[in-house]
């Protein structure tokens, strides 16, 4: 069984389309769209959201993604009404990127909390980590001796596991590989960076723009650090199942 996902949008078409898109990368995850009002207008409907929550109940928990303001309020209200039917978590994440990341994490068997984390990691870079272009600037300017090119302070404890891997697949890092890496890592108890970006963030990995022959420097902290590095190693070695 996996975590299931409910998508609440003001638009029926957005909810359906987002689910259709994410299903390409997570074919086994139940995703239930709840878009528009019950009479087909733009807006959100308690009835629709509650019906979606009911449909999604019975798995390993439900993560809810929403679009604009009142969709959040409708989702919260529906959760208040539907009290006590398993774990239901609201993810604060962009609806498309968040859904794809959540779906991939759920496909990889992540827990309901890990699925929400995967969705929320698409919000952009965590404040504690710089963007890749910032690393470049730091590395070339050389004005901040306290920082290494990886964006981590030099005096930070060494990672519990780390390794370098060369991308062998033709297309290099793109959406599907990024989704696989982020999805698997979000289910592990480890903080992982890949070339300085959050390894559990699909969008972060995609911004690396790493083509065939690029080297991924992986650093992992935490109890599952070894497993995390081994997981990335396996994916890269197999070319993510691509030519």
């Amino acid at each position: 069984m996996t975590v299931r996902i409910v998508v609440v949008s003001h638009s029926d078409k957005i909810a359906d389309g987002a689910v259709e898109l994410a299903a390409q990368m997570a074919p086994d995850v139940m995703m239930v769209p709840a878009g528009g009002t019950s009479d087909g207008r733009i807006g959100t409907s308690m009835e629709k959201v509650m019906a979606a929550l009911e449909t999604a109940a019975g798995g390993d928990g439900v993560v809810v993604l929403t679009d604009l303001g009142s969709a959040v309020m409708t989702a919260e209200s529906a959760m208040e009404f539907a009290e006590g039917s398993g774990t239901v978590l609201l993810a604060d994440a962009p609806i498309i990127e968040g859904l794809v990341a959540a779906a991939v994490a759920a496909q990889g068997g992540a827990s309901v909390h890990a699925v929400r984390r995967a969705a929320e990691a698409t919000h952009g870079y965590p404040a504690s980590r710089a963007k890749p272009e910032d690393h470049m600037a730091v590395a070339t300017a050389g004005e901040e001796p306290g920082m290494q090119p990886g964006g981590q302070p030099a005096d930070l404890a060494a990672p519990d596991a780390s390794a370098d891997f060369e991308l062998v697949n033709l297309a290099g890092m793109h959406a599907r590989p990024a989704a696989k890496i982020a999805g698997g890592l979000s289910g592990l108890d480890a903080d992982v960076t890949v070339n300085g970006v959050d390894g559990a963030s699909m969008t972060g990995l995609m911004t690396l723009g790493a083509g065939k022959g690029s080297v991924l420097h992986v650093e992992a902290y935490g109890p599952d650090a070894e497993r995390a590095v081994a997981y990335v190693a396996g994916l890269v070695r197999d070319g993510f199942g691509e030519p």
Partner: protein
Amino acid sequence: MGRVAVGLDVTWAVKWLTLSAQAMAEHRVELIELDRAIGDSDHGENMDRGFQAVLDKLAESPPETPGAALKLTAMALMSKVGGAAGPLYGTAFLRAATTLGDAAYIDAAALAAALAAARDGIVARGKAEAGDKTMVDAWTPAVDAAAAAAADGDTLAVLIAAAEAAEAGAVATDPLVARKGRASYLGERSAGHRDPGAASSALILRAAAGAAA
């Protein structure tokens, strides 16, 4: 002799909701105009549609307690309003219903507590505070006035105090600059207009008093 009035019952609740629906229909254009000035001009239409749905539900499955009537209202509003007012009013009626439970009669203290729970639900859902130019600015004075009036034990007095305070509170939103909701995008330009949510809240609380008179 000696028999204390037992309080408001389900007949009052149904009448309240019916009068609210009438008020939304009567003031539909006015609410649309208020919302056109600082929002997206759908509040009157949404509230009218929502309360018509409440009337349908009341006719379909007549409630047996005031709490049941308010819970049914919550569900209908959340499903049919569409805009942000749906979950806000829905949560208000739901929290009030939860506070009242299965009680057949509501005394003044329970009434004041239910109004406070409704206001707290709106605050929890909308994250607005007093002075943000939202429906909270009608509800908070209403809750305070109701609590003060409840000491005398007269439910009608509680409802009249709440309605008057809500109306004054709605008028007092005119000069405020919106800090929540669609109107907040307008910044300073939102001043000089009444908040539509505060206006509809005052109408609903006036209907509650009218139903008990």
